């Protein structure tokens, strides 16, 4: 058992996670901007535009923040030091920053060279990060706590592998077997496996920590992510031949039930929090959990919807999960992580007295974070029902929603930049 990782000295310098956090909102802004000019993403979730936009959000925004945060959280909270963290952080950052737009361009222009380039750069950048994180996770000093995060890392590897297979097939590098449709599997492992499992693993640690709530029920934190993983495996058709369809359905339902269970448990312990001060992070989390419940309720109903609503409902579901659930949770976390790290590194670097440097609320004041939440909420209220509205109203709601998404991304970016500016102004150094 190693405990070296408990120390902040094992964590990366402030600059490393901060670069991830400052680049991420720009990808969200890019996605919002492009979506305004592209229209076919609304008619088909597998359209080139939809695929490009989805990857800008999942890789450029969500994975960008999640990896930056993981490199910080693993050593400090889980006692799982990440080997060679500085260099590995650069690999991940460059891989995501360059590989993601290349990949998105490859989809949107149906251009194999860009697809190859994007795929290669992403793999080259993410592989060192994954290997390094895996080393840390194996040696974690708190193994039972690390399990959901291990599962999420495993799911990221599966997602990436399926993604490589798909991108290679799409760009003609190799021929995929016609019998296997890997696209829904890639999406499921990425959204449920990587994003949702990681959020759950982190939630077990941070939700009780931030609001002083009771812990999650022990049986839930012990088994829930295993149920989801089992659901994913069933969905992936590992069941007996002939039972494939039934197994897949059971897998889907298990995942939806577990998602709702997680969201309700989170809302329940948050309702019993001891800390009653208004908190924008709490609001982002509640919005995220409500969106997760909405997604998990909508998913099993898709099959029963009239044909003309099928695809629209899937677009709405994707938006509810990516922007309503994942982006809300990520935004809420950034408003704790960035002000705290700015304060902490400033204090450590300068040795200043606590009263002499800006505290967390001065790094990013509520009056700046709150408008971001309002923009985000208004965006969801417009974008989620937009696919179901009659033509002129639908177009208006979509455009207005995308403008709000862009405005929210800019607000978030400026808020995070403010913490960086105060950190530097008070004598902090970003190496």
């Amino acid at each position, binding site marked *: *058992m190693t*405990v070296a990782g*408990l*120390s902040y000295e094992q964590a990366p310098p402030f600059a490393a996670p901060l670069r991830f956090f400052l680049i991420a909102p720009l990808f969200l802004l890019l996605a919002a901007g492009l979506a305004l000019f592209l229209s076919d993403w609304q008619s088909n979730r597998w359209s080139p535009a939809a695929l490009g936009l989805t990857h800008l959000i999942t890789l450029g925004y969500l994975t960008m923040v999640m990896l930056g945060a993981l490199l910080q959280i693993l050593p*400090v*909270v889980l*006692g799982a030091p990440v080997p060679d963290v500085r260099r590995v952080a650069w690999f991940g950052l460059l891989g995501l920053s360059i590989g993601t737009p290349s990949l998105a361009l490859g989809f949107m222009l149906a251009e194999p060279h860009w697809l190859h380039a994007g795929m290669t750069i992403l793999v080259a950048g993410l592989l060192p990060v994954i290997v390094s994180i895996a080393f840390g996770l194996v040696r974690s*000093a*708190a193994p039972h*706590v690390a399990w959901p995060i291990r599962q999420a890392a495993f799911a990221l590897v599966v997602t990436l592998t399926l993604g490589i297979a798909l991108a290679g097939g799409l760009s003609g590098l190799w021929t995929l077997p016609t019998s296997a449709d890997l696209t829904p599997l890639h999406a499921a492992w990425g959204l449920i496996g990587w994003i949702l499992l990681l959020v759950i693993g982190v939630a077990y*640690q941070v939700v009780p*920590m*931030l609001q*002083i709530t009771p812990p999650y029920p022990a049986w839930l934190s012990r088994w829930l992510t295993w149920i989801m993983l089992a659901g994913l495996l069933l969905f992936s058709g590992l069941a007996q031949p002939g039972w494939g369809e039934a197994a897949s359905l059971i897998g889907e339902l298990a995942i939806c039930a577990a998602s709702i269970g997680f969201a309700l448990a989170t809302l329940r312990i948050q309702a019993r929090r*001891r*800390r*009653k*001060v*208004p908190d924008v992070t709490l609001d982002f989390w509640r919005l995220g959990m409500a969106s997760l419940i909405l997604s998990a309720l909508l998913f099993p109903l898709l099959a029963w919807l009239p044909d003309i609503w099928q695809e629209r409902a899937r677009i709405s579901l994707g938006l509810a999960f990516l922007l309503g659930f994942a982006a809300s949770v990520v935004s809420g976390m950034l408003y*704790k992580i960035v*002000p*705290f790290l700015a*304060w902490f590194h400033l*204090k450590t670097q300068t040795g200043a*007295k*606590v*009263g002499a440097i800006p*505290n*967390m*609320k*001065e790094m990013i004041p509520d009056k700046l974070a709150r408008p971001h939440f309002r923009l985000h909420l208004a965006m969801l209220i417009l974008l989620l029902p937009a696919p179901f509205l009659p033509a002129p109203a639908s177009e208006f709601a979509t455009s207005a929603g995308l403008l709000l998404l862009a405005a929210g991304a800019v607000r978030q970016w400026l808020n995070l930049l403010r913490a960086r500016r105060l950190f530097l102004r008070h004598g902090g150094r970003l190496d």
Partner: protein
Amino acid sequence: MTDITHYLAADHTHCDDLFAEAENAVASTDWLNGQSRFQAYEAATLHHFAREESVLFPAFEARTGMSHGPTAVMRGEHVEMRETLQAMGQAIAKRDADAYLGLSETMLMLMRQHNLKEEQILYPMADQALADTAGEMVRQMEMLAG
């Protein structure tokens, strides 16, 4: 055996509760209540640090030979939290709610991450290393004057 973990984790919960009460009172600018709650919180926290620094850590270090290991990290974090507590006390004295709430947000992050590390890593290690004397450890910490 999880005696030490149980005992000190319960102490954390007690401090957390007092922290939340003080913060809730200050947030509603109930200064009289806020001041007394803060004082209770501060006293409980310092008492908890003392239990660790004068009973648990020395015993752990003596038994495991690790004097620059996890206990050194925890002592360092205690120093930081003591300083933040002091600044919070000054904000209360000045009736400056914004300053207090900014500092308490900072304190919460320091305190809860610190507690998490102790409860998930250090205390279980201590329970293992000091299994034969865990009951005695708890008794000594209980006896420590506040």
